[in-house]
């Protein structure tokens, strides 16, 4: 999508000299494609509003760690209103006690980011404010069903000759200690898994449960976003980040304790 970049001024009101957070946020917003102006230290609310107008920004991000936020943040909003400016988003960050947050929100600063906040949260907040909620990642189909077997060749013979699905490829995935056979049928495929090591996860699975269905994999259009969404929903994950799996796909496993006892894989493939 081709949009004009969002313009942001990151500002340090008051006398506070702690600018590590402000500078990290400034750089993160810039890396997210926004145009960022950083004012430097010791700015008065008047000066900040002046820069915001001159630079034609859509966002003012204020940072203070000295405890003077109640005194310094609201006047910025007030001065914008005096200039009849209503569409500039004013955000705050710093060491700010929870009980002060509603006070700042009432003053026209809808979001306050406190220690431990991720720069991604700030980026997402700004983007959603201007572009609306990001499209939710979609599950497209069942990508494959994984079946753990002791003898891969025997299983392939059975599927090819008895069930009637052809194996199109065999691949070894060393870091999972597994050899995988792919048998596409219709929109999805069967994945047969044989362990290459007596201590591999598939060998352990068979030792515990016997041969049989090992996991079900759903294809998604944005794996990273889907994982973020699941994390926020508190779903336990085995893989916190996408990693490369068999067949060139990016994959991640969810923990069975969050999915009614069966193993779920999510995958994303370049089409």
């Amino acid at each position: 999508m081709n949009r004009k970049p969002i313009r942001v001024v990151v500002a340090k009101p008051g006398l506070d000299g702690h600018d590590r957070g402000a500078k990290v946020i400034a750089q993160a917003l810039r890396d997210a494609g926004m145009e960022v102006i950083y004012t430097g230290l010791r700015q008065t609310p008047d000066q900040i509003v002046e820069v915001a107008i001159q630079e034609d920004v859509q966002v003012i991000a204020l940072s203070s760690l000295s405890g003077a936020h109640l005194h310094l943040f609201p006047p910025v909003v007030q001065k914008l209103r005096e200039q009849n400016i209503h569409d500039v988003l004013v955000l705050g960050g710093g060491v700010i006690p929870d009980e002060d947050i509603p006070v700042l929100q009432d003053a026209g600063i809808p979001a306050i980011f406190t220690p431990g906040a991720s720069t991604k949260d700030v980026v997402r907040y700004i983007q959603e404010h201007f572009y609306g909620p990001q499209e939710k990642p979609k599950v497209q189909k069942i990508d494959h069903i994984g079946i753990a077997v002791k003898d891969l060749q025997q299983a392939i013979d059975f599927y090819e000759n008895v069930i009637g699905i052809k194996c199109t490829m065999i691949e070894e995935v060393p870091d999972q200690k597994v050899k995988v056979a792919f048998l596409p049928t219709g929109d999805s495929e069967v994945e047969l898994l044989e362990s290459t090591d007596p201590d591999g996860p598939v060998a352990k699975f068979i030792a515990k449960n016997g041969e049989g269905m090992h996991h079900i994999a759903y294809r998604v259009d944005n794996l990273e976003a889907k994982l973020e969404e699941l994390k926020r929903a508190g779903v336990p994950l085995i893989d916190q980040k996408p990693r490369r799996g068999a067949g060139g796909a990016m994959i991640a496993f969810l923990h069975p304790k969050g999915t009614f006892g069966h193993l779920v894989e999510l995958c994303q493939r370049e089409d």
Partner: protein
Amino acid sequence: MFDPKELERLKQSKEQWKENKVSKVTQRFPERRSEFKTDSDIPVDTVYTPDDLGVFNHDEKLGLPGEYPYTRGVQPNMYRGRHWTMRQYAGFGTAEETNKRFRYLLDQGQTGLSCAFDLPTQIGYDSDSDLAQGEIGKVGVAIDTLADMEILFDQIPLDKVSTSMTINAPAAVLLAMYIAVAEKQGVSAEKLNGTIQNDILKEYIARGTYIFPPEPSMRLITDIFAYCAEQVPNWNTISISGYHIREAGSTAAQEIAFTLADGIAYVQAAIDAGLDVDKFAPRLSFFFNAHLNFFEEVAKFRAARRLWAKIMKERFGAKNPKSLMLRFHTQTAGSTLTAQQPDVNIMRVAYQALMAVLGGTQSLHTNSRDEALALPSEESVLIALRTQQVIGYEIGVADTVDPLGGSYHVEYLTDELEKKAMEYISKIDDMGGAPNAIEFMQREIQASAYKYQQDIESEERIVVGVNKFIMKQEPPKDLLRVDPALGESQKAKLKHVKENRDHARVHEALERIRVTAQSNENLMPVIIEAVKEYASLGEICGVLRDVYGEYRQQIIF
């Protein structure tokens, strides 16, 4: 110390061991990470053995405690004689409240005072200035005139306690007030013990409470060196600070390098001003951070000591052993405290305090668990002080000197950090020294800070309670709040003082400062005269602002 042939044999057998034993295990059970590194990007190996240190010259690398190059400590017996000074940084609100907190801490067995000033005081504005509004008494105590200072140290015998003051740009004024209060208590200046931070270069680089441009700022600093060498001989005239450089995001190696580079600039400025190195150098002190990477931090303190001794001896030709000793205060890293699950901070602080003690610190501030949320409550401060007392009195680590010395790993890290720091210092030398390399240092720090944050977000770096082991928790109650009415009462107090002083004498004293500032005369005597007339901090700094102008920061991110 080690035989080269023997080292070669050891190296080979270690390689074999890696090939056979280690790789067998790691093939079956992959390690937690593909590579292990310290915060300064030094690779960390499976194990350390003598061959990692090469032919190790004991006397050159370590020496005995209290002997050159002081790697193992500046005193021969370190904490066997006396513990480090347990010095909690405190100060908020009015002089009355801070005086109460000081006396509470002394009653609890604290052995030195450390005073935090509010931002207007640190930047040379009185409480009645427009720019001070909203900041009065917030991050420290508000001091406008000698009247506030008299209350601050009421019933505290200044000949018995040592006081550290975190004050930089207007350090000369606060020191002048301290000397004047002592005089009123009947304590002469030569009996005073304490420290002013007085480190302006790191204000430009990382902390932000500068006032004047570099040149007059350096002159104020060398004036203080010269005055104290004669009049306040036991005063630490500067605390060259890596703490804030680290808090701004630097690595351990950068912390050593940039701090010592600043130190070199001060020493050079004082020599250029005609002072004898062995007269002022014994009163230089340092201030470091105790961060997270345990062994690297211990090594950092040792490397800094060794490097400074070499610099003073070889570069500046100092002869007095006291000039070669890097004495330092440590504070646990505020930036590592989490707002989430704040009680866990108690554990972080305890380990950090241990790093500082194993690194041979002369004094220590332990942070309180609630500092990512607000100023610390009295109860939190007490736990933090007790943490030091447990380390000092219960667990035996203070009973021998530098107990980690000789650890192959710690010695290896000490060597590596010294090397990395020296590379930076040479680079800064090539730029013409620290005052000319401020932007370079800022850029380096910013890059490290950004990487640190990205590592947390990618979970490359784990922060318990923030990106792992997360728990929903009620925010803690009983946070300390500075009374918002305090600003008004402080202003009323100032008004009263201003109305009840001898205006003509104040005016004359301020004019004398103006004239002296334009000359080459030492500024300290005229500043002391002015504070005794109850000229305010803002008035004195105002005159100096007129003469010197103000520093303008370059915007770098």
